[in-house]
């Protein structure tokens, strides 16, 4: 069953993009999956575990890649970015460029933008010393630490402190929105540290914890009650170096007194922001973005940004892995519907 002539271009080979490509391909339409890195997988590749089931995220990525390869209609182009686009008779004429400089021109009938989210640069928080003290890292960088520890590399920390809402829920130096996933991944990261090093003191400094999902609340409670991570309600004010360690100053607001804890590593759950490729791509394809650069969906649609342009995943707003996949599938459904009716 061939659907002659229809091609979709998916820009971004993370879980959302892979899902969209897979569904469109399996529905019988041609697609090109363009990914700017050398490998598919996106942000999920960097993760050491997942919530709420503590699964290995690489298994999901590997599974999806093999399915993509099995489907004959999907052309995977890694180390490739879209650099130019013109409106054409049936859609868009897009120029792709690979890292070695080679360009390809494609006539496509629909685009799915799936460029994902990145971490805010939290060096604006001088009080936290990101970029000043080497042991202050953001949550994505910390995933690499967890992977290293799992492989037996790196010093065992005596204390780790996680700060939530660094850049999120912050009208002063950051963004007013909530980045949605940090409460869950912080609980995950804190739990993993305790699993590896039961004698390490692990603190999570929070204002709230948001666990709105299936098995989410139970996940966080497990981390607190069974893995013995210490949750302190108070947004930290400052980090000071002292005696080779990092001193965290905050208030324990549930008691109402200022406290200090001394740790080796501080992990900043930084606000999720659209990746910088998103803005230029949105412009290229006439997609609207909000004031933070996240793509906006048209009224009543699930994934439509503009004529023949769809989006899925973190480029629309931060979300967890399963939700990104679901959005990829929704975008695919709208593309398939579009193609089927033409």
């Amino acid at each position: 069953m061939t659907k002659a002539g229809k091609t979709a271009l998916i820009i971004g080979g993370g879980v959302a993009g892979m899902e969209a490509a897979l569904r469109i391909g399996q529905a019988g339409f041609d697609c090109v999956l363009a990914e700017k890195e050398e490998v598919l997988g996106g942000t999920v590749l960097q993760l050491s575990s997942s919530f709420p089931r503590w699964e290995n995220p690489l298994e999901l990525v590997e599974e999806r890649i093999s399915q993509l390869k099995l489907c004959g209609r999907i052309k995977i182009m890694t180390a490739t970015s879209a650099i130019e686009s013109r409106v054409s008779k049936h859609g868009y004429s897009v120029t792709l460029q690979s890292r070695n400089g080679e360009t390809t021109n494609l006539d496509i009938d629909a685009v799915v933008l799936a460029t994902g989210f990145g971490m805010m640069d939290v060096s604006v928080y001088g009080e936290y010393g990101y970029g000043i003290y080497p042991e202050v890292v953001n949550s994505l960088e910390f995933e690499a630490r967890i992977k290293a520890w799992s492989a037996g590399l790196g010093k065992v920390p005596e204390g780790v402190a996680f700060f939530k809402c660094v850049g999120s829920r912050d009208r002063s130096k950051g963004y007013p929105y909530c980045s949605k996933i940090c409460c869950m991944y912080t609980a995950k990261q804190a739990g993993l540290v305790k699993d590896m090093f039961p004698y390490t003191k692990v603190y999570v400094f929070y204002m709230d914890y948001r666990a709105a999902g299936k098995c989410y609340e139970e996940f966080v409670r497990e981390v607190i009650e069974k893995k013995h991570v210490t949750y302190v309600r108070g947004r930290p004010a400052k980090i000071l170096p002292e005696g080779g360690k990092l001193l965290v100053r905050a208030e324990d607001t549930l008691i109402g007194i200022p406290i200090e804890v001394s740790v080796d590593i501080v992990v900043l759950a930084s606000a999720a922001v659209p990746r910088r490729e998103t803005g230029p791509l949105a412009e290229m394809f006439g997609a609207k973005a909000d004031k933070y650069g996240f793509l906006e969906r048209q009224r009543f649609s699930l994934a439509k940004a503009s004529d023949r342009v769809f989006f899925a995943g973190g480029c629309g707003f931060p979300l967890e892995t399963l939700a990104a996949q679901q959005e990829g599938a929704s975008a695919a459904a709208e593309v398939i519907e579009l193609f089927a009716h033409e």
Partner: protein
Amino acid sequence: MQTKRVINPGERIPRVPEAVFLFRSCTGSLEYPGTESAVKETLKFLGVEAVTDPDQTCCSGFLQACSAYKPEFCLAVTARNLAIAEKKGLDTYTFCNGCYTGLSEFSHTLLSHQDQRAAANELIGRWGYRYEGRTAVYHVQEMWYRLKERIAEGVVRPLKGLRVAAHYGCHYLSAQYGILDDAGYPTFHEELFEALGATPVFYKERQLCCGYSVGRGFTHKEAIVQPHLHKKIKSAAVAGVQLMTTVCPGCNVALDREQPNLNRLYGEEFHIPVIDLAQLIALALGVPASKLGFAANTTSLDHVLKKLNCDKGS
């Protein structure tokens, strides 16, 4: 996210003025006249004329912060003082964080509230003053940083080996927007120290307030301010600080004059002289120590001056 927080010196002071209205701090002129002198000398070196006016009065910000004055008085006093600068067509530079914040905040209120500006202008109008907001308010530390290269080139007495600590004070960085550095981790004073050849020390309580800014040194000295100052000075001593700088005579009073009390109360042997940043710059630029009024300091600088070979009038 709104107006820019940290801006670079070229944005803050786009064109270096030939002359400025130097707003004199009463605490500065009365407690540490050497600060007044050092500011004038440094401005002179930088080719900026410092214009003062005997018609200028105290900014009156301190007593307002201590709840002794109501803002209406300070709004009128600010309008009057700044009108003097405006008449000369000059921007206003002060050498006290307290004056800086008072003048900034009150002038901002005057400019953004038509009714309050009208009320103030009515009061001062009887003597022919009128405030229209045509004089911008700065602190001289901004000028020092703006002309850091010029200062570095003029150093004749590099402060080699001197371990200097900054005390930024609270009331410049607290403005947060449109200023030279981030209150979270400021570094521009340390950059100036390096330009002078000194070694900056990032001591643990570097950013702690001095405790004196709103008169708690009068109302809560033993209960709060002395234990607080003990923490600050102790952390500097532990870090091997030899000299501390301030940009506010109020802070200077707290950090300098309380040290003997702290030594007595806590059995310490603190001896960290505290001077104004302008005095440090002036020393490095070759201004003789005898012109910098260190006789006013409680914690003596003699050993530092000896180390720099600039004791006794050289």
